[in-house]
């Protein structure tokens, strides 16, 4: 790079991979749109500041409608922010156009909530993992597909299977394999275990925890379930109606939640214990 910006110097200092300042997102409210004229805007995120350091896992929690998925998508520039700045690896990506974004896209991958609808039912697992690599011009793709399958603990023979032949947990692991095959700097995981039953959930979480350790992945993990967050994340951000109500080290947040809303989320988790207080 020809000249280093001040922001980049600052971020390398603390090794911040992703940061956002005053991030706002608003959508037009089509339900309230008059027959003529513009629809009024509904604010989804009200000025979010965040920093994700390299190699760390940030958990983003909140109820439905809290804006957690919108925040994730705004970071990846999948929805347009209405205000604020997003820095990825020191570079301002807030207003980059699609062409300029494309090389950066490889660096930030996403794992989706519903593995069935995010895997092409007509393509085999091998092709599903290989396609994005082909698009980004990787070499020795076949070897990389095997590697990715090894990483997520699926047998290599799964290359020739179709998504419908796999269980929910296995499908989700294919989703993870597709994301890590590109060797991205950053992965966004949006509610990736909420559709799975407990034993496959445990499997997928373990795979992800090991990958974070082995590959040094930086991860943003969106979930409505705090017990899943606890298992995986270093830092936690709690969102309520587009505002951050709590943001801190996971251990501190779980030991002594400051916000009433965090407390409420924690108390609402049904522990496998008939004696649990508050029920």
């Amino acid at each position: 790079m020809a000249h280093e910006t001040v922001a980049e110097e600052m971020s390398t200092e603390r090794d911040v991979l992703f940061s956002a300042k005053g991030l706002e997102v608003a959508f037009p409210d089509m339900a309230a749109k008059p027959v003529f004229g513009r629809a009024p805007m509904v604010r989804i995120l009200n000025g979010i500041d965040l920093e994700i350091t390299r190699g760390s896992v940030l958990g983003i929690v909140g109820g439905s409608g809290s804006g957690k998925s919108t925040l994730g998508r705004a970071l990846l520039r999948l929805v347009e922010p209405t205000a604020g700045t997003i820095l990825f690896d020191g570079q301002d990506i807030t207003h980059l156009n699609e062409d300029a974004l494309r090389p950066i896209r490889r660096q930030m991958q996403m794992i989706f909530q519903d593995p069935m609808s995010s895997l092409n039912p007509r393509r085999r697992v091998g092709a599903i993992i290989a396609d994005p690599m082909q698009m980004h011009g990787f070499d020795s793709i076949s070897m990389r597909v095997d590697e990715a399958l090894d990483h997520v603990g699926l047998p290599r023979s799964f290359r020739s299977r179709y998504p419908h032949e796999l269980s929910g947990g296995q499908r989700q692991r294919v989703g993870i394999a597709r994301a890590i095959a590109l060797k991205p700097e950053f992965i966004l995981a949006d509610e990736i275990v909420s559709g799975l039953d407990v034993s496959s959930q445990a499997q997928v979480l373990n795979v992800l925890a090991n990958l974070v350790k082995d590959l040094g992945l930086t991860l943003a993990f969106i979930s409505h379930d705090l017990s899943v967050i606890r298992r995986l994340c270093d830092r936690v951000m709690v969102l309520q109606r587009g505002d951050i109500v709590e943001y801190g080290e996971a251990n501190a947040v779980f030991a002594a939640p400051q916000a009433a809303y965090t407390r409420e989320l924690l108390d609402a988790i049904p522990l496998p214990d008939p004696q649990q207080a508050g029920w």
Partner: protein
Amino acid sequence: MSAFLTVHNLSAVLHGFDQRVLRSVSFSIDTGEVLGLVGESGAGKSMIGKAILGILPSAISIIEGEILLDGQDLQKMKPADRRRLIGATAALIPQDPLTALNPSRRIEPQITNRLVDILGWIKSDARVRAMELLNEVHIDNPERVMASYPHELSGGMRQRVLIASAFAANPKLVIADEPTTALDVTVQKQILRLIRELQARHSTAMVFVTHDLGVVSKVCQRLSVLYGGKIIENSSVPDFFQGPKHAYSRALLAATPKYTDPDASLLPVDEAVIEAVAAEVLAADKEWRHGA
């Protein structure tokens, strides 16, 4: 007191396959009691609920066993009589509140239809009852909700509407098929409390299907753990959470996340445990074949 619902030795097969999908399932539920059916996806827990309600997919048929509802053997009844009995005494709270409601009709007829069609109520009475029910499920503005379409309501509201409609005809038995998996935790808590409240007030017998042992510990008195369509452990809820007897149940419990215990790494159900339980199921199959 005799049980309100008894399922005895129920087996079912998928057409064209040799293997049973329900394997000699037996349990019974008294009035006012909640039984949890627990298992991973594909264990057959929802299928049992569907078998009781007579809504199994056409590719699955019951090959042996009895379902006694209020003392009457459903398998021996004429289909029309059976439908009438089930419609009048049992109800379902489904998993996904959006697909369970007709998107092109307002809420009101979706609650009152059962009363009008099956119980022969007149429309105005049914409407009054629907309003009462929406009050009972803590909906503040029943008039508005009755005039709404499903897409205008939140997930929690839709599930309330479905609970109201399930309890509309004062059922003696309610099958709840993962009623909270589509909801977030705070709403889930409200809905579980609501279900408990209604179940207790009407002393309904209830089958609660879920994969979440945390949820079971909150709503059920007893539970049955299923694997491969076979019940592998029956237990009372307090005993179970003290320590399940079967190795598979223990593994399932260990896989349930607990935020209070961060260092406990989640154990996915061990392959060896799965193999053991699968072998157990197959052994039972062999025995069953010899018997038959």
